[in-house]
């Protein structure tokens, strides 16, 4: 088992074979967008414009950006609370995300649900529920349907280290393993579950458990978007080849508190400092600077997009209270199912 718990078999460094220069810029773009939107949202939260609480994925941008970039339009995803880049890559606009945070009519859930609890069905995503890690089973079910219908598609979901303690995690792992389903599970190991450190969650790292369910588990540097991409790209190939699920541990760190109110006193300062050196965005920037990319221009572009999106989101009205009880049930006998995402990776464009 231990032999499979390793980095996936990739050459060190950026994977020139699969990622073009443009792809690598896109990866940075979505990470910058994620960070920028979340920073903006935090400001809006402080101004009282974001109701409820606010969760972000600061420092974990590579986990969702790298993984989602490797997923095809026809694949399906359940995106977690620290994975904003995945929504962006699938095709959700920053405006709708900011409107979502502010509970506006223009948000993905039209004010019905809050902050990170959303998914855009138009682009193939099921919004997470709060109960962690329930979406593991939903992703498994999507993969089950793909396999039952003989389709060449796969499903992917993320889950946190803490959530691996819950029963649904196991039911999904076992189900996916015994049925050899085309599903990719990404363990977002950010060292904490709220205030609880890994040592109080499990005695053995969950990635070591993958083999106990009959499929491989790999640990990947979660702060390296390109490594994440490559690991997921390979996992997807395995899934499509009929070789079943893969679990990928993205080793990272939750750099902010659990939510806006949490000062994370329980995290040793040195731990945060150590991880600050490994910032995933700076890392990708360094690579691109070496390639001669004008990173400052990209940053400016992203900032401008977020500024415009903020303006637009603020224009979106609050939902009409008269509609509050509408939509509990679906009334269309043939409702839409999940739609396709936007192809981002050049590999999908070539194929098309």
């Amino acid at each position, binding site marked *: 088992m231990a032999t499979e718990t390793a980095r996936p078999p990739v050459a060190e460094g950026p994977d020139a074979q699969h990622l073009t220069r443009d792809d690598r810029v896109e990866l940075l773009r979505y990470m910058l967008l994620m960070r920028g939107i979340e920073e903006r949202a935090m400001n809006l939260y402080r101004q009282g414009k974001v109701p409820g609480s606010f969760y972000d994925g600061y420092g974990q941008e590579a986990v969702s950006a790298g993984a989602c970039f490797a997923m095809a339009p026809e694949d399906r995803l359940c995106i977690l609370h620290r994975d904003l880049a995945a929504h962006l890559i699938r095709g959700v606009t920053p405006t709708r995300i900011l409107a979502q945070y502010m509970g506006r009519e223009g948000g993905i859930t039209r004010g019905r*649900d809050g902050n990170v*609890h959303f998914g855009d069905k138009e682009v193939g995503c099921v919004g997470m529920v709060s109960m962690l890690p*329930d979406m593991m089973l939903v992703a498994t079910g999507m993969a089950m349907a793909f396999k039952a*219908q003989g389709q060449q598609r796969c499903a992917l979901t993320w889950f946190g280290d803490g959530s691996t303690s819950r029963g649904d995690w196991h*039911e999904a792992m076992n189900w996916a393993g015994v049925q050899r389903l085309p599903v990719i599970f990404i363990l977002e190991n950010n060292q904490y579950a709220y205030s609880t450190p890994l040592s109080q969650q499990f005695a053995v790292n969950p990635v070591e458990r993958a083999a106990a369910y009959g499929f491989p588990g790999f640990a990947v540097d979660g702060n390296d978007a390109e490594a994440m991409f490559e690991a997921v790209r390979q996992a997807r190939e395995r899934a499509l080849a009929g070789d079943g699920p893969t679990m990928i541990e993205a080793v990272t760190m939750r750099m902010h508190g659990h939510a806006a109110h949490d000062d994370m006193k329980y995290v040793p300062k040195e731990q945060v400092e150590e991880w600050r050196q490994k910032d995933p965005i700076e890392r990708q920037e360094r690579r691109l600077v070496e390639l001669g990319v004008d990173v400052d221009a990209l940053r400016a572009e992203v900032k401008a997009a977020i500024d415009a999106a903020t303006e637009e989101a603020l224009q979106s009205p609050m939902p009409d209270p008269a509609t509050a009880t509408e939509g509990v049930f679906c009334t*269309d006998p043939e*409702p839409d199912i*999940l739609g396709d995402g936007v192809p981002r990776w050049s590999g999908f464009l070539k194929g098309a």
Partner: protein
Amino acid sequence: MATMTYLQAISDGLRQEMRADQRVMVMGEDIGVFGGAFKVTDGFIAEFGPDRVMDTPLAESGIVGTAIGAAVVGLRPVCEMQFSDFIACGFDQLVNVAGKMHYRQGLAVPITVRLPSGGGFSGGPFHSQNPEAWFMQSPGIKVVAPSTAEDAKGLMISAIRDPNPVCYMEHKHLYRRIKGEVPDGIYETPFTARVAREGTELTIVTYGAMVHTALEATEDLDGASVEVLDLRSLVPLDTEAILASVRKTSKVLIVDEANRTCAAGAEVAAVIAEHAFEDLDGPVTRIATPDVPIPFSPPLEQAVLPSVDRVKEAARELLAY
């Protein structure tokens, strides 16, 4: 038309809909090769193959959760709980993932959850429950409960075709006991109440197995004219039909096999107390199982489940009121 048992009618509805719609699949523990604990899916795996008749691991949360996943990508899964009691193990996926999905993000979850429920044959505390009220208390889930073979088939088809999560309460004690004429082919039974017997002096509002208890108890009740309303659907609840009947008879007895507190019967009573106050000529009376786990031993079980005699007695009291 053919005469079928309630159980055969469920099977027939499922089978016909699977033939009509490739998206429909059934899944659950021991439902494939074995044909299900009650044999509802007997022979299905031979006809439809293991991809559409799926033997699952022993994992109720997994059954409901994966069904949701399959539904949102285009299938129409019908999940079987081996006994309705086991839905407690898949409760979270049903109420939190399936029930809230459409409201939150406009994504439909067309799954049907078959819940073999009810007591009467020494199933004991874990094989006799009537858990429908848990789901009535959980927004976004429809709940139906057929009492006849005809409705068992029709409601099965309607449940599968409904684009929402539907709990299909099938009463185990009706499986082989109740027979009836069942139309051939495909038909849908609406999620509305049905007048099982017309009457003018007293309304009995009930559903599931208790419809038969109510009919038997009032078949010949000193010549009284007793209306029996079979709710068939609990969510949506056909309040119009309930109120119309109460307005006509002015007296109402509610018979519910579930544990009394906060059960479907409580909701029906509350609706009547609020909206038919002016029409009532007697207290809104409830018969239900007291708040006790269903005991195993026959004399104990018979003592707690609503009986023909208790219904008779309560009906007589109300008629005399």
